[in-house]
């Protein structure tokens, strides 16, 4: 896949980190403002897809040997399961998905139990999954059926 002209590449260099930072902001403030894990995760994937489209397939560091995206996605969903099992072990009630961190005052950044941690983990999983779908279908579709 060919890249785009030099103007688009320069604008992408300036704008894509801002989009990524905006996605992180939406994830972390998921329990205070509209958004949450899913919205922030797809926005982070959107920043990554924007870079791929503007630079083309020969973006440096795109290799097929080991996918760090696969590791990120698998550790995302494993982290969600670990948070659920920690509620089983460490809370007084002793059920799956119990809230084992203190609730705190409504409206502060550090509050609402394990919900900020769950937002971060789900955002990692969703962004890695959507980026992996895009890479597999658009960039690597010619080479995948030949090697490995």
């Amino acid at each position, binding site marked *: 896949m060919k890249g785009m002209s030099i103007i688009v590449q320069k604008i992408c260099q300036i704008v894509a980190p801002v989009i990524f930072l905006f996605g992180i902001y*939406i994830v972390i403030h*998921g*329990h*205070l*403002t*509209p*958004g*949450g*894990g*899913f*919205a922030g995760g*797809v*926005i982070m*994937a*959107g920043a990554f*897809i924007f870079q791929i*489209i503007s630079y083309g397939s020969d973006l440096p560091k795109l290799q097929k040997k080991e996918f760090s995206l696969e590791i990120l*996605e*698998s550790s*995302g*969903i494993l982290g*969600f*399961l670990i948070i*659920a099992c920690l509620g089983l072990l460490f809370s007084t009630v002793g059920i799956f*998905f119990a*809230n084992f961190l203190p*609730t*705190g*005052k*409504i*409206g502060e950044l550090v*509050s*609402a*139990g*394990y*919900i900020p941690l*769950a*937002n971060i983990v*789900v955002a990692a*999983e*969703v962004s890695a*999954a*959507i980026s*992996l*779908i*895009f890479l*597999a*279908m*658009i960039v*690597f*579709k010619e080479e*995948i*059926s*030949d090697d*490995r």
Partner: protein
Amino acid sequence: MEIYLIIILALMILGAVFSLHAKDLLSAVISYGIVGFGLVIAFLLLQAPDLALVLIVVEIITLIIMLAVIKNTTHEEEKKSFSLSSVIYVCVALLFTLFFFVIFARFGSGLARFGEDTMRMATAYIDAVHLTGSANLVTGVVFGFRAYDTLGEATVLFTAVVGVLAILRIKGKKEED
């Protein structure tokens, strides 16, 4: 309020009909974007900002993937030929629509008017905000009261990625000849 939603729904229906009848596949995909973006405006009018955020980015990503698939394969449609089975399908669909309207006219009074029904669980979730402690009620429901559904959704997304990678990697025997 209702009149805005009626106008947007009518535009969505027009966009959907045009998208299914376009001769060129490129026009079909671009006018499928009308349905998605109209739905985003409808979600903003219905006071659901979380959904509007997710849907606008998901819609753009779907359009990008569809456009890349069409660019790499073909973007023309075959010629139309009238066949008997499509007439049977359309007649069955019209019968089903008539059946739905009859049932709706008779028993539709159970469905409340637009904007006047409050369910029991909604008041229970709004009053129990001190149990989860999050100011965003939708996040409190998604990750607090209904965390099993979120676990299932994460599993479905993971399985879909595994499926896409597995489908695009199979080497068929006939492709080597």
